């Protein structure tokens, strides 16, 4: 047992590091109070695109992709190594490209025509074109396949009407991966078809969604008679659900970490050091110490779980299901730890922003935690996934598989 690279990994890491040193500045130490900032766009979109282009040129934008598509045909572990090293530098964020390169383009690679692949993969890799994912709808959140957006065939075109929701980056995306219902008489999972389209198409309207926190990281996207050429269909008509599963499978491959904006025990420790309670420094209070320990073992457990996953990658194995536990643990911990910190702050805990202790870091964490417990799979959906895919327990009783979609309760 050790934490060392293999010889090959060490060599690759050196290569990456040399390149980064030549092309970026080392990251300055980040204050706990900025903890939430890591979620946000470091620098403008222009800077992000410029950095993405640089990475793409060198093959680091997607290490695992085949060389002819702009990758290095490298291993998943090499991708992890690149990410670790880039994390030590003060680069622009790759966030705007994550969904496109992580989910949309891999789906295109699997189901798209040779032409479409040649046309779209490299511009996306370079960051010239940004993609978003258009699956969720007001009627289909946890139950993605419950979506209602209608696509009707007219000659060689499809005419699409309906609404999508929770679309990250729709407002700056050039293309979108769209799942729509092409047959309402078919069974729920059999009437869906996958397309991609230009977000500039006439009839596409993007509206930001204001979140409880006040921020707006997601959008609603309204479709009114939007025309999509049949050539932009991915997979056969009615097989959209199968295609979507490919996309979602790629979503789950991401190795955890960075979740929760990095607000964690370290920040709680600094706070507990700084504050005086009834009986002296908060850090000396037995109740405070027990809570710190409880949260520390969960954070450490996740960190070392990630090491185990990386070890599997490093040995060329598929990452185990361990990764699936990260969000459940992090989101609730963020919510509870933040609430607890606010109580340590006393009445001042009810303030936010610059008026609150530590620039309102814990208030921000507490306000964002409910979103983290929901986005990308609610706690309840993730527990189902663990129970079914990891433990092999039976699926929930399904009443929506046999009936035609338009006869399902709630779908009327």
């Amino acid at each position, binding site marked *: 047992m050790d934490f060392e690279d293999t010889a090959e990994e060490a060599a690759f890491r050196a290569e990456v590091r040399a390149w980064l040193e030549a092309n970026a500045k080392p990251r300055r130490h980040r204050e706990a109070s900025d903890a939430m900032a890591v979620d946000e766009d470091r620098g403008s979109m222009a800077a992000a695109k410029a950095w993405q282009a640089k990475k793409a040129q060198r093959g680091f934008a997607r290490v695992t992709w085949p060389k002819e598509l702009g990758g290095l045909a490298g291993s998943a572990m090499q991708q992890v190594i690149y990410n670790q090293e880039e994390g030590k530098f003060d680069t622009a964020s790759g966030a705007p490209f994550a969904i496109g390169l992580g989910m949309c383009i891999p789906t295109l690679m699997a189901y798209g025509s040779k032409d479409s692949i040649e046309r779209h993969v490299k511009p996306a890799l370079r960051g010239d074109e940004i993609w978003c994912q258009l699956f969720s709808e007001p009627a289909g959140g*946890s139950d993605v396949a419950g979506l209602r957006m209608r696509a009707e065939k007219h000659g060689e075109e499809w005419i699409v009407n309906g609404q999508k929701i929770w679309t990250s980056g729709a407002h700056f995306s050039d293309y979108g991966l769209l799942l729509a219902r092409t047959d309402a008489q078919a069974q729920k999972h059999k009437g869906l078809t996958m397309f991609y389209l230009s977000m500039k198409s006439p009839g596409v309207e993007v509206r930001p969604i*204001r979140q409880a926190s006040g921020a707006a990281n997601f959008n609603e996207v309204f479709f009114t008679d939007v025309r999509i050429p049949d050539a932009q269909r991915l997979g056969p008509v009615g097989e959209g659900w199968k295609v979507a599963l490919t996309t979602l499978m790629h979503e789950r491959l991401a190795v955890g970490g960075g979740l929760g904006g990095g607000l964690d025990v370290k920040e709680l420790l600094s706070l507990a050091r700084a504050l005086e309670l009834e009986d002296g420094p908060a850090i000396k209070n037995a109740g405070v110490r027990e809570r710190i320990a409880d949260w520390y073992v969960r954070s450490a457990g996740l960190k070392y779980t990630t090491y185990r996953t990386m070890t599997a990658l490093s040995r060329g194995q598929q990452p185990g299901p361990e990764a699936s536990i990260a969000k459940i643990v992090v989101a609730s911990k963020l919510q509870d730890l933040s609430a607890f910190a606010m109580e340590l702050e006393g009445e001042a805990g009810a303030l936010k922003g610059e008026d609150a202790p530590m620039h309102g870091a814990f208030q921000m964490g507490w306000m964002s935690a*409910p979103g983290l417990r929901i986005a990308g799979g609610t706690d309840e959906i993730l527990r189902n996934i663990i129970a079914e895919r990891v433990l092999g327990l039976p699926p*929930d009783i*399904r009443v*929506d598989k046999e009936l035609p979609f338009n006869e399902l*309760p709630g779908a009327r």
Partner: protein
Amino acid sequence: MNFDFSDDQKMLRDQARRFLGERCPVKAVRGVLEGAHGHDAALWKAIAEMGWTGTAIPEAYGGLGLGHLELCVIAEELGRVLAPVPFASTVYLFAEAILAAGSEEQKQRLLPRIASGERIGTFARAERPGAVTPKSIRTGFKGGKLTGTKTPVADGMDARHAVILARAGEDGGERGLALAVVDLDGAGVKRRALDSIDPSRKHAEIVFDGAAAECLGTGGEAWSLTSLVLDRAAVLMAFEQVGGADRCLAMAKDYALARFAFGRQIGSFQAIKHKLADIYIGNELARSNAYYGAWALSTGARDLALAAAAARICATQAFDFAAKENMQTHGGVGFTWEYDCHLFYKRSRHLALALGPQRVWKDKLVNELELSNAA
């Protein structure tokens, strides 16, 4: 055994619920949440006209002269609708402090204007993050002048009067403390609005630079007096919390019945059913503890401190849990600004932090248990 509110008190509750249903829709809360004003002035006026601000103030001082049980009933309804008014600061804290320690002259002068809703009051303890302890109080009160900073002060921008916990003597601990009543419109007072997690209930920083103030009660008792006022306020606020928690359960239940996923009402999934059952359990326990607190408050029972701490802790836990799991039950939309879940989530935390955090109340509760068992 008669451990419930009377029929008259229940009528008052129904009346309050109807009234607030009309006069305090969610958009009133959003109006204050998104606006610059510290409270909904029209609603405050209407509430005062109902006489609620003077519910427990004796008729001799312009109040209705009803008991605290009636005030509890009203508090639950105010909590249910998240009423964006300085009711707690003015009625539970300021008025109770004057009633508990004010001189006859002070009561004559101050209480009628509180009862009529003309004046807003508050109570200021905290001066910096962390615990409020006798030693932590730096604001000075010497020769009738206040000097120092109180922050955050709930409803501090809107209040005309405030009771200030300050240091009058040389003693650096409890015995050096005093309570002062100050006119916040007077000279030597500067206020600054602060950002709050629940902007429907705003806070201020108040800087005193030799502001004229008068003494409340006799020196040396300031800390125990503050503690008594907090006990009484905790029971009343527990009813606001119970009202809010109750509303969260109703919202979650309605959504679980109306929302379909996988071809079923989401309320038919055990993950949701059991979550809501747990909210119900928490709310029932909180309500029962609040009822006992109400009894202790209204009868001045010897174990008020124990009853208040239990009511406070249980109601805080119930509202926290109900508010966050209501949001979770709603899924994505629950996290939008458009849906109302976040208003309750924010208020639950606001109330959890007002009057001091759970830790302090738990410690107090165990102190009381030690005393009672010592017998």
